[in-house]
């Protein structure tokens, strides 16, 4: 018998936190509180349909771990079997909202349900404004059920459940998968050129690169802007769709630094979901927000690693 156990027992080394530049402070995370029953510190998921491969991970940021707050990001993806599409949503609960984690989760669930319903009615049409409005209405219903049967004000709903949202779908197509998505707030989406390691933002950055100061303004559900940001694009063979909250987007920046290089390498092919969560939990000084990342690849003929 070896000191590590039975002969032949695997003895892998524990994963070490990945430091990007100067790491943040290391500490044991505090629990998020007894009233948070269904928001684990880390979530990840991964699967493939005939034409698409999905990976997603969401990790609690160092700030929330240190101060005993729940992760306020959420992400969900489901397949739509009749069309082969993948429907997705990523949300970042606004931390000034008292139940931001619930708002983010509910917005994702409502968006997915609405898109699946639309696909059932009309597989070729997608009304993302209707999806956004439905998600906002679901947040209102949460408040209405709890407090005031007459109907809450937008400010009341925002005070409890405000959240950003990026949602949409990817449909298989002979010329390459087609992405349709929209966003409310400052979460982001990128096309990663996995051959060149370059990121193309689907939506404009929340603060222009020439702005002297960062902006503190963010639109969030239940508000739905009159001019909803929407995009339709096609994935080329080298492109990966990447959707993320600002906990990922802020350290990524233009993607031409260390964080961009790390993820360009790690997303060159679909990683295991657990490994994606580990990489996403990288340590970098001052970047202590929750992080969520969802990536969708054209199905590779080679088996995923």
């Amino acid at each position, binding site marked *: 018998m070896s000191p590590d156990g039975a002969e032949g027992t695997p003895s892998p080394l524990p994963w070490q936190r990945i430091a990007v530049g100067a790491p943040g402070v290391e500490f044991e995370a505090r629990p998020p509180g007894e009233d948070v029953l269904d928001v684990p510190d880390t979530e990840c998921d991964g699967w493939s349909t005939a034409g698409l491969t999905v990976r997603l991970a969401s990790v609690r940021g160092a700030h929330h771990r240190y*101060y005993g707050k729940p992760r306020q990001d959420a992400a969900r993806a489901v397949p739509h079997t009749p069309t082969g599409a993948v429907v997705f949503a990523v949300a970042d609960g606004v*931390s*000034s909202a008292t139940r931001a984690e619930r708002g983010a989760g509910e917005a994702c669930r409502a968006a997915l349900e609405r898109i699946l319903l639309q696909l059932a009615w009309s597989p070729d049409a997608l009304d993302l404004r209707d999806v956004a409005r439905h998600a906002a209405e679901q947040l209102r219903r949460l408040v209405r059920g709890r407090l005031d049967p007459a109907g809450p004000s937008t400010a009341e709903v925002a005070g409890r459940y405000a959240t950003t949202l990026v949602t949409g779908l990817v449909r298989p197509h002979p010329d390459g998968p087609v992405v349709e998505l929209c966003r409310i707030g400052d979460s982001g989406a990128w096309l990663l050129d996995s051959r060149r390691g370059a990121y193309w933002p689907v939506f404009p950055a929340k603060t222009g690169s020439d702005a002297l*100061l960062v902006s503190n303004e963010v639109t969030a559900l239940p508000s739905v802007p009159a001019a909803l940001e929407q995009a339709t694009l096609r994935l080329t063979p080298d492109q990966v769709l990447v959707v993320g909250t600002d906990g990922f987007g802020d*350290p990524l920046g233009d993607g031409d630094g260390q964080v961009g290089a790390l993820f360009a390498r790690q997303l060159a092919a679909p990683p295991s979901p657990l490994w994606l969560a580990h990489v996403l939990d990288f340590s970098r*000084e*001052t970047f*202590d927000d929750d992080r969520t990342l969802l990536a969708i690849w054209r199905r590779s003929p080679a088996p995923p690693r």
Partner: protein
Amino acid sequence: MAEIKGVLLPAYVLADESGSMGPYREELSEGLVSLCEGLRAEPMVAAKLRLAVLGFADDVQVRLAVADMRAETSLPEVVIRGTTRYRAVFDDLRQRIPTDVQWLRGQGYKVHRPVVFFLSDGQPTDGDGWRRSHALLVDRARTPTAPNIIACGIGSAEARTMLEVATRPEFAFVAVPGADIGRAISEFFHSLTASLVSSGQALNSANPQLVVNRPDQFTMAIDEVGL
């Protein structure tokens, strides 16, 4: 936007060093030390702040240049001197803040709107001369890096003046009548530390806000003026 090293809140403490503060020099020094130690005890918050301490009287003198408090080992020392020239403060900040913001950006950081904590025990001795400089400093069209200003008055500083200095009515405070001035100074620094920690904690949120805590021994200046 190239990859950034972080997003920082530059914070400036403007401490009145005029002659009338002489009896309270010890409380002022101890308050600054407690501020520095309080931030060092919160390294995750301190990582997102850069603190400067400036003493003002006839002019402005740097007691602590924009510093990362996790690494800063020196403690600011106050020097009591001269009269209370507010214009010197605002002239200085109009030069200093844009330069500091550009320097931080050059170091690879993004920068939140700076915040100034202003503590004075007296009315300005330079008449109305400070108002134009103050107006230029807080005008975001003319000074894109215009700071938020929190103004705290003690001693003979008037509520109406603190309201003029602060950038929002809820950012102006005066010591309650009859308050012990030494204790009010201590409370100012306790509140300042708490405000910076709270603001630092809120900086990573989707809707970061400046958090300002009213110091014990102080009231809202607007309540005193009755506007």
